[in-house]
């Protein structure tokens, strides 16, 4: 029931860059995510800060993270 609130708190990070991007994502895209999208987002939130930031700005297509691409692309766009 409090899934959104829980996700919102887990968007609190050690890097300000991520705080800002994740907050924008929550405001703009979170509500429209389906269950698969929410799962992808939560998996992305589990990455360490520096790794997640690099995934967002470097936009390299990592085979291992292919399943996370749809939500990652949204994160890259905000």
């Amino acid at each position, binding site marked *: 029931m409090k899934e959104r609130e829980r996700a919102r708190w887990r968007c609190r990070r050690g890097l300000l860059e991520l705080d800002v991007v994740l907050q924008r994502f929550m405001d703009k895209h979170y509500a429209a995510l389906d269950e698969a999208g929410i799962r992808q987002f939560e998996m992305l939130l589990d990455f*360490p800060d520096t790794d997640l930031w690099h995934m967002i700005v470097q936009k390299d297509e990592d085979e291992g993270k292919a399943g996370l691409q749809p939500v990652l692309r949204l994160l890259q766009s905000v």
Partner: protein
Amino acid sequence: MTVARRKFDAVIVGAGGGGMRAALQLSEAGLKVAVLSKVFPTRSHTVAAQGGIAAALGNVTEDNWHWHMYDTVKGSDYLGDQDAIEFMCRQASEVVYELEHYGMPFDRLENGKIYQRPFGGQSQNFGGAQATRSCAVADRTGHAMLHTLYQRNVRANTQFFVEWMGLDLIRDEHGDVLGVSALDIETGEVMILQARATLFATGGGARIFSASTNAFINTGDGLAMAARAGVPLQDMEFWQFHPTGVYGVGILISEAVRGEGGYLLNKDGERFMERYAPHAKDLASRDVVSRAMTTEIKEGRGCGRDADHLLLKLDHLGADVIKARLPGIREIAIKFAHADPVREPIPVVPTAHYMMGGIPTNFHGQVVAPYKTGPEEVVQGFYAVGECACVSVHGANRLGTNSLLDILVFGRAAGNQIIEDLKRNTHHKHLPGDAADKALARLARLDSQKDGENVAQVGDMLRKTMQAHCGVFRFADLLKQGVDKISEVAERVKNTEIRDKSRVFNTARVEALELDNLVEVAVATMVSAQARKESRGAHARDDFPHRDDDKWLKHTLYFSEDRRLDYKPVRLKPLTVESFPPKARIY
């Protein structure tokens, strides 16, 4: 209302580098340790530290802890306590090697030794050639440190309370500290964590400024808990700023941009740094550039609708140079300023970065306050380390790479001191019946508030007030108005209201509680800054442009209860070497 209670030997609030280094010392000594953190430990703000750890290992060029000590004293503009600075610089090599043995993957030289790189403000031979003193793990030193310490703590059975927020410090009638009340963010439950030793490692509070490089979690929680419990805050007027943060969000634009030939413009399109620093221009030191920017804005030459920022132009460097040499900065500009620097300038303002002040401690990590007979009496059972503490090794300004060193040295020292102190204090002291009342009263007020203030709006007003009245360059009239304005904000904070009163994951409640903390830090900063009538280190005043050692070579102590200020002497006498007497600071 009865509140659940748990007992530990030591409770640590904050799981950044300082908290986890102290926790490790305690857990490995067999003590029962609880560490509270608002976020998962490896997401603490330590992760943002890239520069490295200063230590005179001498792996690349000859080095000596005594040279490092000189640089730190000078960098502090002589406000640093020289006993603590000697202690830190002497222990630097040891704590770095210790971290190496814990598995920290330091960059290496070809001969296998730890690689070191140069960093601003670090010299050889007491102000001579550039020193090569920073030990790093590429550009992710803080990240590597957090992961190393977290793994090691898990192995040592440190008990983490993740997504818990400290609410208030618990003191008895003698002033001794007995633990903290805390909120489990997930369930909304309040609990008392009783301990024979309570250590704060809650980090900084630069979220009091609208432009800040700090993560959202840096709301000065530990400082506010200490201040509300009657512990003074020391040297709160000293905040380090970077000249170029992205307007609106504060994210840092590295000096590399100006190094490559970028320059600043005001609303008239004038390259104004030529007026302030005819030779160095945009490459003048951070404080000179920041002050010039503030002056331009104050005199009405700022850009944009509110004339409140300046422009950093680099399109003349050409797309190829920007893409090749400044790719990370281009990403940041596009993402956060919606400006591609290949075509348009980046809107920037000076951005708050590091808090030199904090909870006063000695170099053993014990909190000291003038509450009994002397000016530096130990507050029994209470310890603080890292950015939330003021030892003071950074004095009026901090050198790059000294913050990670600070948290390692004093995290360990506080751990050792607690181990000694607990040998004498073998039992938990009696917990007063009203131990959680203060925290419960704040929560009850928040739940019952009607027709109250909006948390986000009041928070915004707080940050704007601090930015406009107590920023990187300070003016008598603005400071005076600032004290009144921040007092108004403080009154409004007393009446904040939240719509969501539910218990589970109520982030609105957490943010209201964080605002209670921010306002303590903000008022302490404004009042301390207005009173200090000199310019020293990061505290720069238009009306008193020079350092005044006769009147102001002393630490500020701010007491929240009656907003009273007191002062105490700087500890100019080191432990074993000669004192470095104050002299003019020239780089």
